[in-house]
Structures are given as structure tokens and as C-alpha cells.
């Protein structure tokens, strides 16, 4: 047990202050425990959001000493005994109260995405997928929608990119749909224009912050950027597609294999 110092943002979206608290911290406590203890003993009206306390619901996202983290997965023994912890709401989204933010902008981005679209035939037959096809898209399904990456991404956080960019979490969702073997929709145009893949400058902060360890930049955003290059920036591929691609499905997938199919 030791008495530790905390500063917690108290206020709304307009104004607020960093209020100092002291709290007894015992072994095994996480930052969310501290918030709860302060709430119980000293500040009954402190608003905070949480749900599972197991790093699986994505509700408790806050910023601790300026870094976006999950409150329930940040252990107190990471910090020095004499260190003051500053706990603030996610910077990129409007504050509802104290450290609770309104993340609904993110759900709007989600709604903009063309949903999973299998063919009628596949729907009837049901899906049979091989493990190696499942693996790649499975990574993105680990997402707990904590919005830490959305908050961390400098395009949204500091560069007022909300108009032009859907954010890393939705790039990952787009990738999971685009790479799905049963999906028949074409989102490449949207990815470039509506979702703004070009706004991302691949500086990888989303990957660094993701509590699920999803390789957002390497496995989702860059592969999508490459598909956009195929469609819009690579003259040879553009020509290639004109000559070889099947009309029903103008996805970028078929270059190498359609070329081979000419001979086999």
C-alpha cells in the first residue's frame, strides 16, 4: 500500500480543470481501480465509462500521462511510486463529462462502409472457407472497438482530418471485407475517396496503440493503399486489367492469376 498522486480531468467539452487526488494503491491495482476508488471515496460525481475490466469491451479508453490506454489494462506498478498520473479523456472526441467522451463519430464512419456482400449463390450454399483464407481476415476481427487508434491517429487528432478520413479502425474493417474470399462488393473507389486512404501517412501510431496487437498499418492500410495503386496509379496494371479482367467483378485481385489463366 502506498499513497499516490493523481490528476483527473473534471469538466465538460468547453471548460474543465485537472483536479488533484490522492489514493491508496495496493498491489495488483490497475488505473481503472484507482478511478473507481476515487469515485467511491472522494468524488462520487466523477464520470467514467467501463464495462468488462478485462480488456475486451473497449469502453475504458482514456489517456494516461498523455498516452491513450485502456484504464483496465494499465497496471499501477508500471509507474514510479512518486510519479503523478494525469488522467484525461480521449483528446480527439468531444467530452461528455469528465473522462467520458462521445465516440459516436466513429460509428458514423462504420455506417459509411459497404457491408459484407456475398453472392446469392454463396448465400444459398453456405460458406466453406479454408483456414489459410480465414487467417488473414481473422486478425482484424480481434478489434474490440476501443477507438484508441482512432484517437491516436494524428490525422484525426491534430490535423482536423475527420472530414476526409475514416480512421485506422475502419481501414482495418475495410481490409477485412476487401480480403474476404466470399465478398463480392468493390470498395476500392470508396477507400481512396470517401474513406481517404491517402490521408494516412503510415506513421504507425495506430499499430503502436492497439491493445489487441492488430498490425493495422502493415496488414490493413498498406495493402489497401497497394490495391488503390493498382486501380488508380499504376499504368501497367490499369492496362492489364482492361485486357484481362472479368467484367462481373472489377476487383484488383485477379492480375497474376488471370495472367496465368491465359496459359493454363
Amino acid at each position, binding site marked *: 500500500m502506498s499513497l499516490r498522486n493523481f490528476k483527473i*480531468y473534471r*469538466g*465538460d*467539452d*468547453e*471548460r*474543465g*480543470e485537472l483536479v488533484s487526488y490522492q489514493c491508496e494503491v495496493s498491489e495488483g491495482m490497475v488505473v481503472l481501480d484507482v478511478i473507481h476508488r476515487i469515485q467511491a471515496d472522494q468524488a462520487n460525481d466523477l464520470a467514467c465509462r467501463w464495462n468488462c475490466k478485462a480488456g475486451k469491451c473497449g469502453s475504458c479508453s482514456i*489517456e494516461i*500521462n*498523455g*498516452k*491513450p490506454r485502456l484504464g483496465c489494462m494499465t497496471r499501477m506498478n508500471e509507474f514510479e511510486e512518486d510519479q503523478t498520473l*494525469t488522467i*484525461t479523456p480521449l*483528446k480527439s472526441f468531444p467530452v461528455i463529462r469528465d473522462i467520458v467522451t462521445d465516440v459516436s463519430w466513429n460509428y458514423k464512419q462504420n455506417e459509411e462502409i459497404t457491408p459484407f456482400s456475398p453472392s446469392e449463390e454463396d448465400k444459398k450454399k453456405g460458406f466453406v*472457407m*479454408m483456414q*489459410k*483464407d480465414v487467417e488473414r481476415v481473422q486478425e482484424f476481427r480481434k478489434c474490440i472497438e476501443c477507438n484508441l487508434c482512432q484517437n491516436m491517429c*494524428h*490525422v484525426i*487528432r*491534430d*490535423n*482536423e*482530418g475527420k472530414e476526409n*478520413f475514416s480512421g485506422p479502425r475502419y481501414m482495418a474493417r475495410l481490409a477485412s471485407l*476487401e480480403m*474476404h*474470399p466470399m*465478398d463480392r462488393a468493390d470498395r476500392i473507389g470508396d477507400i481512396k475517396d470517401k474513406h*481517404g486512404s*491517402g*490521408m*494516412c*501517412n*503510415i*506513421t*504507425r*501510431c495506430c499499430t*503502436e*496503440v492497439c491493445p489487441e496487437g492488430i498490425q493495422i*498499418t*502493415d496488414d490493413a492500410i*498498406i*495493402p489497401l493503399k*497497394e490495391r488503390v*495503386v*493498382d486501380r488508380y*496509379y*499504376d499504368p501497367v496494371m490499369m492496362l492489364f486489367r482492361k485486357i484481362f479482367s472479368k467484367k462481373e467483378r472489377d*476487383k*484488383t*485481385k485477379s492480375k*497474376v*492469376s488471370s495472367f*496465368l*489463366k491465359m496459359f*493454363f
Partner: protein
Amino acid sequence: MLLKKNLLTDKLREDKWWISPMLVLFGLLSFVIYSTWAAWQGEHFWWSGGNEGFGGYLSPFYSPTVYIDPTKPGVPPMYHSLLGSWPEWLSWLPGQSPAWLILIFPLSFRFTCYYYRKAYYRAFSLNPPACAVQPIQGIPSKVSAITNGNINAFNSGNKYDGERGLLIFQNIHRYAMYFAVIFIFILSYDAFLAFFNDGRLGFGVGTFVLTLNPILLGCYTFGCHSIRHLVGGDLDCYSCSLYKDKVNHSSWKIVSFLNRRHQTFAWLSLVWVGLSDVYVRLVSMGIINDINTWGL
């Protein structure tokens, strides 16, 4: 009570976030300065102990040698030149150095590489300098506005445009990659050459240096995101045909393995290519002696 925007600044991050961009800045700048200097020299990029026969050490900065000015010290014998002796119309090139003619290829490859883009956007453009740290304002912000692709940087402030404005050229990366792959073969040939001196098989420290070079470069190049895309990343299904997709899937797996380590190989190969030039240069100038089996 203060305004929220004044309270929740990115100054809250207390750790030493600036170390990593500083190291990148230092590393890349040193390489640029050294390689420019080395390319400028136009001499002492070859060593064969004075022998004319097959074999010798060639600095990777100068490979392939398009033209050779045979009057200079430490240059390969004439048969090594792709197009003969130094032409009149190129006499204006600093140092009559053949390095200028080829450096554009590795340079454009690294410049548009997805890893290096991250590195220099953080360290040079400072947008963002580190995660959850505000883009730095002031003079660097003008520089960063330009490198961020804002054509009107000086008139209209610092609007971030990602890789859509000026930086749209980054999309040529795969073309730079095609050339880089050719260079792996050329440098492998140079490694082969380093096993010979005057037609005699053998090896020396330089052989080791010049052999490791294409290996590291290969690990870097074949971990490229564009290759990962082209060999199979562009497919949505790896089991929809009997055998063709299998080839795609296994090559995609191999490239993915290297791709995970892309940053490591980016630095290792960069440092090693520089060191290879330093080594050949020092041996060629006679400052150090190559230890080898030829007894030279």
C-alpha cells in the same frame, strides 16, 4: 476552470518520446552526407591489388559502373565498364563519378519505401514527431507542410493533406522496386567477383563484406510491401484454384515473414552498404590491408 483545448494538449506526454525521431534524423542525415561525399569522389571504389584479371572488390555505391575514367586511381579495369570510357558530354558531373548515374535507383527505392516514409515523416516532417505529440509548429511546420504535400504551404498555412497532394508520387514505389530487384542481381554478381583475384579463387575480409551486402539488401528488398502485394497480397482467396493460388500463398507467406522485419533490414542493409563502401575505399587507398588468401 480553463478551456479544455488549453488543458488537453499533447504536452502531457512525459516520457522521452523525442529520442527515436532524433536517432532516425541522425542516422539518415549521416548516411546522406556520407553517401554524397563518397559518390563525389569518383575514385578509390575498386580494389584488386593492382591485378587486371577477373575479380576484385567493387563498392556498391558504384555498381554497375556505367562509364569509367581510367586516369583515376582505384577504378576498375576498362572491361568492367558497361559503356566504355568517360564521355565528353558528361564531363560536368562532379568528380567524373559514375556513382551519380545509378544512385537514383536505390535512392528512389528507399525514399518511397513504406518504412522510410514513416521514419522521415516523423523525424523530418514532424507530423507527427511521435505518437500523441502535436505536429511541431514554427519553421519546421512550413517544411512539414511541403513534405506533407500541401502545394500552397506558404500561402495557406499548414493544412495537412497526407499522401494525396504533392506526396502522391509515393505511389511509384513499386516501379522503384522493380529496379531495386535488378540491383540485387548486380550486387550478387559483385559478391561473386569478390571471390576472385586475377582469376584465382579465394576470399578475404572484403569478400565477406561484399557477400553480406546483397544478402541484407535482399532481405530488405524482398520484404517490400509492394512485393508482398504483387506476389499474393492482392488475392482474396488462396484456395479457390487447385495449385496457382498455392504458389501465391506460399510466396506471400515468405514475403510476409521478411516484411515483419522490414524496419530491421532497412537499417541493417543501409548501414552495411555504407560500410562496404568505406571498406573498399580504405583498402583501395592503401589505408588498411585486406586480409585474404591471395597473399596480397
